[in-house]
């Protein structure tokens, strides 16, 4: 019988009436009197509680009343495909299959911070540094010294657009322990490209150590995979 159904409420109310009648009829007998009064009290309180619970769905089922939510908190683990290489080298020329369409002047460089390995299993926010051939080496050194963030160094060309870079996020999350939090560092040459970036992340001009520090400051901490509950998308129904 449902905890919030009409039948249970009616049954409780009926029992309350029965208890009242029985108590009145058996009033002369002291045990009946005491037990009957207590039964009336319990049933009346239960009836009021059931009605309130039905209207507000505090506990819609007996399982809910028992504290059973039927939910498992999922903590997905994420390892980057290139973790081994990145742990060894710190920075690697990055050539995922998708990179062919990014139209960059030189292959992208993936740079992990000094704290990438310890403590293990954390995912890092991402800095995308849009720079020039001339500055690339310096930017790579600065990135390697900046803790708490994974850096992708890109030297775009005129053919590079936000649209051609659309696959960057997916490639990153597959190859390196990274999150969807992104900030941009942009050489003045690439200000327009940075401004059109999908999701409009914060853009910090330049790529000095100070610019790195400013950009990283507003990104989340590197974190272990979060506890997660099922979402609407998991259920496959948007409404």
């Amino acid at each position, binding site marked *: 019988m449902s905890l919030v159904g009409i039948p249970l409420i009616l049954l409780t109310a009926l029992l309350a009436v029965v208890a009242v009648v029985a108590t009145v009829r058996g009033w002369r007998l002291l045990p009946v009197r*005491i037990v009957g009064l207590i039964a009336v009290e319990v049933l009346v309180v239960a009836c009021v509680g059931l009605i309130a619970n039905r209207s507000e769905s505090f506990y819609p089922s007996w399982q809910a009343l028992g504290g059973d939510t*039927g939910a498992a908190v999922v903590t997905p683990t994420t390892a980057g495909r290139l973790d081994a290489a990145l742990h060894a080298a710190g920075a690697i020329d990055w050539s995922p299959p998708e990179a062919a369409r990014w139209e960059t002047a030189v292959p992208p460089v993936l740079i992990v911070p000094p704290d990438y390995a310890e403590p293990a299993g954390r995912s890092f926010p991402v800095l995308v540094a849009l720079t020039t051939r001339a500055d690339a080496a310096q930017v790579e050194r600065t990135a390697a010294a900046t803790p708490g963030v994974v850096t992708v160094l890109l030297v775009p060309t005129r053919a590079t657009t936000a649209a051609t870079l659309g696959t960057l996020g997916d490639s990153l999350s597959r190859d390196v322990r990274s999150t969807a939090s992104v900030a941009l560092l942009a050489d003045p040459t690439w200000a327009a490209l940075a401004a059109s970036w999908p999701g409009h992340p914060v853009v910090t001009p330049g790529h000095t150590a100070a610019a790195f520090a400013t950009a990283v400051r507003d*990104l989340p*901490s590197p974190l272990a995979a979060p506890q997660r509950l099922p979402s*609407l998308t998991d259920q496959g129904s948007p409404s």
Partner: protein
Amino acid sequence: MTIDSPATVLLAIAVVLAVTAGLALLWDRTRVPARIALVAVVVLSVTGTAALELNRLTETYPHWGDLVGDPDAPLALPVLPGAGPSASVPPVPGPPGKGKIVTYQVAGAAGGMSMPMSVYLPSEYFTRPDLRFPVIEALHGYPGTPESWIRRLEIAANLDREIIAGRMAPTVVLLPYQTPDLLLDTECTNMTGGPQTETYLTQDVPKWALEHLRIRSDRAAWGVTGYSAGGFCAMNLALKHPQQYSAAASLSGFADPGIKVGDGSEKTTNNIAWRLTHHPQPDLALWIGWAEDDRNARVGSRQIARLAKAPLTVVTAIVPRGGHSHAVWRQMEGPAFDWLSAQLARPAQA
């Protein structure tokens, strides 16, 4: 014996049984006025016991003193020692790895409210005096008090666990009252002719926290959450004040306040569905959780998720069952705080 302990409720039940037996025993020896008095005592004891249990569930009156105290008088609480920079150093750290909950009196100039506020300070707050921390305001339901977060939802143990596991960055969590009158449901709004709770929570509390705690001031590091009425509050306040908050998490919140604010705004500016269809949506991240068998929260939450458009983003979290209860919110606490921390700017050098 505390007002919210199971022992207190058991004692009350014992009293009910005793006075009921007393009525049965004394009935034949008493005249009508005494009998009426006996019935009144029995009825009072039954309703009193039910009220005690309800209060235990909601923490509406967390202390015996709250029942008798002058509601306008501030509670006797430890206040920050001294003024100026020394005030930002709380008295004693907790054990290693454990955060600490400290309670302060927060008087708001703009909203005109003066209420106690409990603050969770993470362990790192004491070990890393060079850092300023991100902040989450966590709002209670109605009826309820910040003690609901502390005692029923065990917020400190949950935050300690998430921070130690590295799923959450060390974060300062503020637990303000959302009503000056424990039996007045404000839904965190500025009520016509009543408390200016929205102003208190979005201006006075942040201002006080910045003056007294080592926290970050930028919106990137500020989030807000809440359960039940507090869930509505979190979404509504963040949508109305996106310059103050960058992320909000609602645990079983509704899409509308369900009260009369006094100016009709429960149908417009204090109605989330109305706001999402009549105003440009802000650049804000929302986490919306509910139990699938909690009808009101489910309908409201799904409606908000459906109406959200860029730059507003929505992540949903669904518990299969559990209704509108603490079991659901205990299940959602870890996921909600982890998500908030993953949106908020990190602890940073002052």
